[in-house]
C-alpha cells in the first residue's frame, strides 16, 4: 500500500461518515435539521468560549517567538531536538497538549497561521493533536469526580503512551510526506 493510496482513501472518510450519519438518522426518524441546528448552537457557544484561551495562547507564543526567546530555547534543546528530529514548537505543543485541550488547540492554530497547515510542522502538529489527549486533565477530572486520590500508575502509563505517540507522529509524518 502506498502513501498515495492511503491519501486517496482518507479523503473519503469524512464525507462517508457524514453520509452514514444522515442516512442512519433518517432511518431512525430523527428530525435531522432541528437536531443539527441544536448541535450547531452549542458549537457557536463553544467557539465563543474558546476566544479567551486563544487570545492568551496567541499572545504568549507571539511574544515568545518575536522576542527571539524561542531561538534561545531551540539552541538549548538542540541535542534533544536533533535526536527526535522535531521543531521546538512541536515539543512545546506536546507538553501543553497533556495539560489543556483548548490551549493545545490554540497553539496548533497558531502554528497553522505562522507556518501553514501543509508545512512539515503543521502536519506534525495535526498528527500529534489528533493522536493524543489531555492526559493530566482527564486523569484529574475523572478520578476527581469519584473522589479517588491515589491514582497509582495511571499518570506514568498515560505519559508513556503520549511519548510513544510523539515518536510515532514524527516518524510517520517524515515517512509519509
Amino acid at each position, binding site marked *: 500500500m502506498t502513501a498515495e493510496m492511503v491519501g486517496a482513501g482518507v479523503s473519503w472518510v469524512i464525507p462517508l461518515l457524514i453520509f452514514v450519519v444522515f442516512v442512519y438518522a433518517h432511518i431512525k426518524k430523527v428530525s435531522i435539521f432541528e437536531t443539527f441546528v441544536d448541535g450547531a448552537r452549542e458549537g457557536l457557544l463553544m467557539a465563543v468560549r*474558546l476566544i479567551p484561551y486563544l487570545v492568551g495562547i496567541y499572545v504568549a507564543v507571539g511574544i515568545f517567538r518575536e522576542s527571539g*526567546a524561542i531561538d*534561545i530555547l531551540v539552541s538549548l534543546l538542540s541535542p534533544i531536538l536533533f535526536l527526535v528530529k522535531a521543531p521546538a514548537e512541536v515539543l512545546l505543543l506536546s507538553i*501543553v497538549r497533556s495539560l489543556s485541550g483548548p*490551549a493545545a488547540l490554540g497553539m496548533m492554530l497558531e502554528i*497553522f497561521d505562522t507556518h501553514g497547515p501543509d508545512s512539515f510542522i503543521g502536519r506534525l502538529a495535526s498528527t500529534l493533536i489528533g493522536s493524543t489527549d489531555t492526559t493530566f486533565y482527564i486523569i484529574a477530572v475523572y478520578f476527581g469526580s469519584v473522589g479517588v486520590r491515589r491514582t497509582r500508575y495511571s499518570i506514568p502509563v498515560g505519559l508513556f503512551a503520549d511519548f510513544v505517540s510523539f515518536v510515532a*507522529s514524527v516518524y510517520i509524518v517524515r515517512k509519509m510526506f
Partner: protein
Amino acid sequence: MNQIFAFLILSGILVSCMNGRINVVVNAAMSSAEAAVERAISLIAVVSLWLGIARVAEKAGLIDAMSKAIAPFFRWLFPSIPKGHPALGCILMNLSANMLGFGNAATPFGLKAMQELQSLNEHPDTASEAMCTFLAVNTSSVTLVPATIVALRSSAGSRNPSEIVGAVLFATTCSTIAAIIGDYIMRLINKKLR
C-alpha cells in the same frame, strides 16, 4: 499550564529587554491578540458545523451501534468487571464516542463509567485496576476519525485537509497499544509486590 504561560511571556519580555527590542513585545502582543480573535471567528463555522453533525449522530444512536461493534474487543481488557455490569456499557459508549471524534459526547459517559467502576472498588480513595486500564486507553486517544483536526486544517487554508488521517491513525494505534501493554505490565508488577 500557569507556569508555561508565565514562562513564555516573562522569558519573552526579558529576552527582548536584553536585545534592546522592547517595542517588539507590544507589537507582538497586539497583533497576536488580533489574530486570535480572527481565528476564533472562523472557528465558529467549523465547530458549529461539526457539532451539528455530531448531535445528529448522537440522537440517531450511532454511538450505541459503534459500542456494540467494539464490545468483543474490549471485554478481555477488563477482567475484574462482572459480566453485564453497567460499567462496561459506559466504558464502551465513552470509547465509541472518542473513536468517532465526538469528544464532547464522550465526557458524560466517561464520568458515568467512573461512578460505576467506583461502586465495584474496594478501596474508594485508591484507583482500581479497571479504572487504570480505562484511563490508559482513554488518554491514549483512540481516534478513527480526527474530524476536528481535519476541519481546523481546512479552515486554516490547507490544500488537502484530510491528508493527515492516515498518519493520525498510525500514531494513535501505536500509542493505544503502548498504553495497553504499559497498563498490563504495571498491573503484573503490582500483583507481584503484594
